[in-house]
């Protein structure tokens, strides 16, 4: 009982499939091409945005101060748009197509619409860079009114968002096709489930974006006379923060996918992991309120309800994944024969595989650096200690760079051989790449947080305040932190350049993997394909190591939380 046309999306165009020689999965040609296109675009914008990020960090290094002020603010605006929006969303669309068409062995629904989506996203991304580089849209990524960008800036974001929305619906369509054509039975695998949560959150996010960006665009055209600054912030963050939850859902799905493909990990309990994904959908959107804790005009009750009820239940979901992902790896590794002691499973994990090391570093650093600092920042009273200081970018580089970007890089080491059918070149360099990039990104996050606790403002060209009428001297530690941040950025940029070179080099000139008898340089686990595309929980595993890891995490979290309350209690009194 279905109205789906089984002969293909468009009459006369039969979907073409190949069987993957390494996983046995069925790969459809249009899905494969769309994943390639989106992944390539993602890497291009990562390279551009990453270069801009390096220039920002070198400018904020007081001893270097690379760019003049005008260029600094311009490049910072471009950095935000290119990495936070374009790199991440293009890659996420690739992940959505992978998690639907490839993992479910289905054809992609409406490939022409998917190409239209890609085209709109490219036009939007290019137009945004054009608007920023023209010099009249230096409004930062958040573009708070009454500061106004050129109409092209808002229009570019709207076009990009429409493209992303179409792509999300192609993903939903592909799920319908896969179900109707019976390419899988029962529940979808966990990785696909996680991708579905990401896609649902994406719809909410893009809707919030439309609600705020369309009027802002009309305002820039002179058709609306005034934008309320508080209203803008409230709705903008419905997009700005929820979009980070797309990232979290996507990169957590990738953690599960890589764990499955490289050590054969199955979720400890499908129920727990899936409920945790569902909690992202239910609670995260309203948690955006924690961006408004230092604003006038919003009641304490509103702040507490939105940051606790909503945010803590989403935080709880992340903490559950933070336990179930290493738990699933431990269980699988013990099955693989690494059963001695508390940590043999971890020591003998495939650390030589860049996808594994990248994924595990992403998991650890997302929790310890990005996660804990995020909860502290999002606490009603504690926010006043760090609001709009450089602690804030410190926190979100912990989530978006050490967490999402590193996970996406790790996934790329699987996408290149499996989807581009080219092997990874320079394997030694590839093994080191996640560590170099990860160490740099961790440094960026932690030194910015350190500088933020010393009061250094974010998005500011000159902490020496040389041109200010009334002088203020920041503590010498702040200069040290900003210098260390610059050095970390150089390290991260080195890791980024190596990544781009390896990916481009492999895609263009890597050993071909479509010939008979071709072998992967970085092999998958024998049961990997089954684990990633199969539904089912692990049976009664022993999890000593994971128990120790989560205990360390929990103690760090509690200590850091109370240290901040102690700092707060030493502030001037607000009564």
């Amino acid at each position: 009982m279905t109205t789906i046309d089984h002969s293909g999306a468009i009459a006369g165009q039969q979907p073409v499939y190949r069987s993957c020689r390494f996983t046995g999965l069925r790969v459809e040609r249009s899905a494969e091409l769309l994943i390639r296109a989106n992944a390539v675009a993602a890497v291009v914008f990562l390279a551009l945005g990453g270069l801009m990020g390096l220039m920002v960090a070198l400018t904020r290094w007081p001893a270097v101060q690379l760019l003049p002020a005008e260029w600094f603010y311009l490049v910072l605006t471009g950095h935000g748009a290119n990495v936070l929006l374009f790199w991440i969303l293009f890659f996420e669309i690739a992940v959505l197509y992978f998690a639907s068409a490839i993992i479910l062995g289905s054809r992609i629904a409406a490939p022409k619409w998917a190409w239209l989506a890609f085209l709109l996203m490219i036009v939007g991304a290019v137009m945004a860079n054009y608007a920023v580089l023209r010099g009249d849209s230096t409004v930062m990524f958040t573009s708070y009114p009454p500061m106004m960008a050129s109409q092209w800036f808002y229009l570019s974001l709207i076009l990009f968002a429409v493209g992303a929305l179409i792509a999300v619906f192609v993903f939903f369509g592909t799920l319908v096709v896969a179900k109707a054509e019976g390419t899988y039975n029962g529940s979808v695998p966990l990785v696909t489930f996680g991708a579905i949560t990401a896609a649902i959150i994406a719809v909410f996010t893009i809707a919030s974006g439309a609600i705020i960006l369309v009027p802002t665009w009309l305002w820039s055209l002179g058709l609306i006379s005034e934008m309320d600054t508080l209203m803008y912030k409230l709705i903008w963050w419905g997009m700005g923060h929820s979009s980070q939850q797309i990232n979290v859902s996507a990169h957590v799905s990738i953690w599960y996918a890589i764990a499955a493909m490289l050590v054969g990990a199955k979720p400890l309990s499908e129920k727990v992991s899936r409920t945790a994904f569902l909690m992202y959908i239910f609670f995260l959107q309203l948690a955006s309120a924690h961006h408004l804790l230092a604003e006038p005009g919003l009641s304490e009750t509103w702040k507490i309800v939105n940051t606790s009820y909503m945010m803590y239940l989403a935080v709880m979901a992340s903490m559950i994944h933070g336990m179930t992902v290493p738990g699933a790896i431990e269980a699988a590794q013990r099955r693989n024969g690494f059963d001695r002691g508390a940590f043999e499973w971890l020591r003998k994990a495939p650390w030589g595989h860049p996808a594994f090391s990248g994924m595990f570093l992403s998991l650890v650093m997302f929790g310890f650096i990005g996660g804990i600092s995020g909860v502290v920042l999002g606490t009603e009273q504690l926010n006043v200690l760090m609001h709009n200081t450089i602690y804030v970018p410190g926190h979100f580089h912990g989530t978006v760079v050490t967490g999402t970007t590193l996970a996406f890089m790790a996934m790329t080491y699987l996408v290149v051989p499996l989807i581009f059918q080219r092997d990874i070149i320079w394997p030694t360099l590839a093994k080191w790449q996640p560590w170099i990039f990860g160490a740099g990104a961790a440094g960026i996050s932690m030194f910015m947080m350190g500088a933020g606790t010393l009061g250094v403002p974010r998005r500011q060209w000159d902490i020496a305040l040389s041109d200010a009428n009334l002088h203020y001297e920041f503590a010498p530690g702040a200069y040290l932190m900003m210098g260390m941040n610059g050095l970390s950025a150089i390290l991260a940029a080195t890791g980024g350049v190596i990544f781009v070179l390896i990916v481009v080099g492999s895609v263009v000139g890597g050993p071909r993997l479509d010939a008979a008898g071709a072998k992967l340089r970085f092999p998958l686990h024998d049961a990997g394909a089954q684990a990633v595309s199969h539904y089912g929980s692990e049976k009664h595993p022993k999890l000593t190591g994971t128990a120790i890891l989560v205990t360390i995490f929990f103690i760090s979290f509690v200590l850091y939380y109370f240290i901040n309350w102690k700092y707060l209690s030493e502030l001037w009194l607000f009564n």
Partner: protein
Amino acid sequence: MAIFSPEKRIWWKQPIHGLELGWIIVVFLWGLFMFFFMIAWHFIGDQNLSTETYRIAPDKFVERVEEFAEEFQAMDENGEPIEEEGVPVVRPAAGGDVYLLARLWEFWPIIELKKGESYRFHLSSADWQHGFSLQPTNINISVHPGYEHVLSLTPTESGVFGIVCNEYCGIGHHTMTGRIRVVE
């Protein structure tokens, strides 16, 4: 057909591992604790940001700040108005109202407070959004045009404090500062 046929089990009927259940309970209780601690701080803590806010036209607020600065202008022993770098130093009555204006690109005027006295600060912007960041104490509050945020502040230490703008406000953002002096 998928090459592997999945078990046809419903995911919400799957069993939970003991460690998972234990962790979920710990995490849930911790979330509850953090929730109640925010509420508790309203009773036990002295740093709860006021939410008292009024709508005000930016030019009206500028007028009020100017009136305030004139009324409480600090004078030296010769009866001359005290200024620093051309900015008037204003000495409000202890326990009284303080009006501080954020505008492109300064916080105006310089305020002189008495340690241990409580003041009602009125914060607003004449133009774009700004960020009030009091250093080195590190108190950070957003400032909007059109909204007058009224908050109580009691300095607990004396000295010269800088106000640095930490909301991006255009090309002069890094020159936007202000000053608060706290005397014994």
